[in-house]
């Protein structure tokens, strides 16, 4: 909060740099997963996230964690990007992992699995299983009805189960 206050009152770029340093790993990590492992793209989008955060810092209300607010911006930046590029992989066209390949213990590359999900499903599943947010919190972050969040997570799970042959 102190760093945020310094940025708001004095336009302190050093203070903002400290904020960026603190949250850059989380934001970039999320965007790497959302962009199917495209690190360069994720970094570009992450930069846009922090620039928007700087521009709209006044609108941050301390009722939620700062990271939550950043994830909201990350989602908006990602969605804006996807509007320019429409790329949805059809689940039926992908090669599924056979039973013999599945090794739950070693941790299969989840990144490939996420490619089969639509953007909203991907974001919802990441915020829930990766970042640990509840359905209600995700609904607030994404500014989406709770029912929609639950549906997206359910659909995402069904697709991932099919992908991993988990049924």
């Amino acid at each position: 909060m102190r760093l945020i206050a310094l940025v708001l009152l004095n336009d302190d770029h050093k203070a903002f740099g400290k904020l960026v340093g603190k949250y850059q790993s989380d934001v970039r990590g999320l965007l790497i997963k959302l962009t199917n492992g495209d690190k360069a793209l994720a970094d570009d989008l992450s930069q846009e996230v922090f620039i928007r955060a700087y521009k709209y810092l006044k609108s941050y209300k301390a009722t939620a964690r700062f990271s939550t607010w950043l994830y909201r911006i990350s989602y908006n930046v990602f969605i804006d990007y996807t509007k320019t590029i429409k790329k949805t992989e059809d689940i039926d066209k992908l090669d599924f992992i056979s039973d013999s390949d599945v090794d739950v213990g070693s941790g299969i590359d989840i990144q490939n699995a996420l490619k089969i999900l639509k953007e909203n499903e991907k974001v919802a599943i990441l915020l829930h299983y990766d970042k640990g947010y509840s359905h209600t919190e995700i609904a607030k972050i994404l500014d989406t009805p709770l029912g929609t969040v639950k549906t997206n997570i359910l659909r995402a799970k069904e697709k991932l189960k099919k992908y991993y042959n988990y049924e």
Partner: protein
Amino acid sequence: MSKNDEFDKFLKTSFQKANIIIKDEGFTENVVSNLRTKRVFSTKRNLILFLASFSSVLIFFISNGYKSILISMIDIFNNGFQLIKPSGISFLVMSTFIGVFIYISNIEYNKSTI
């Protein structure tokens, strides 16, 4: 544990294993260098600056009399126009006036917490 719970656990574990701390490697520096400096002047600050400037002029006039500054200004202008070196006193008066103006304005501006 139900099949569903097992799959939930599997997803959480997979994400945890995929999570790594991403090194900064100049990312922060890049972001900060692309920030546009906001215009820190606001209406309130402009008002403070104006009032501070006005106060400094007023203080100078009260302490030195308005005539001295007017005479000095005319002297400098006339001599400057004719490319003649102005008198030392005129120069001193104007320098003092500008110095007081900047000093008081600066103090008031820095004191401002808006």
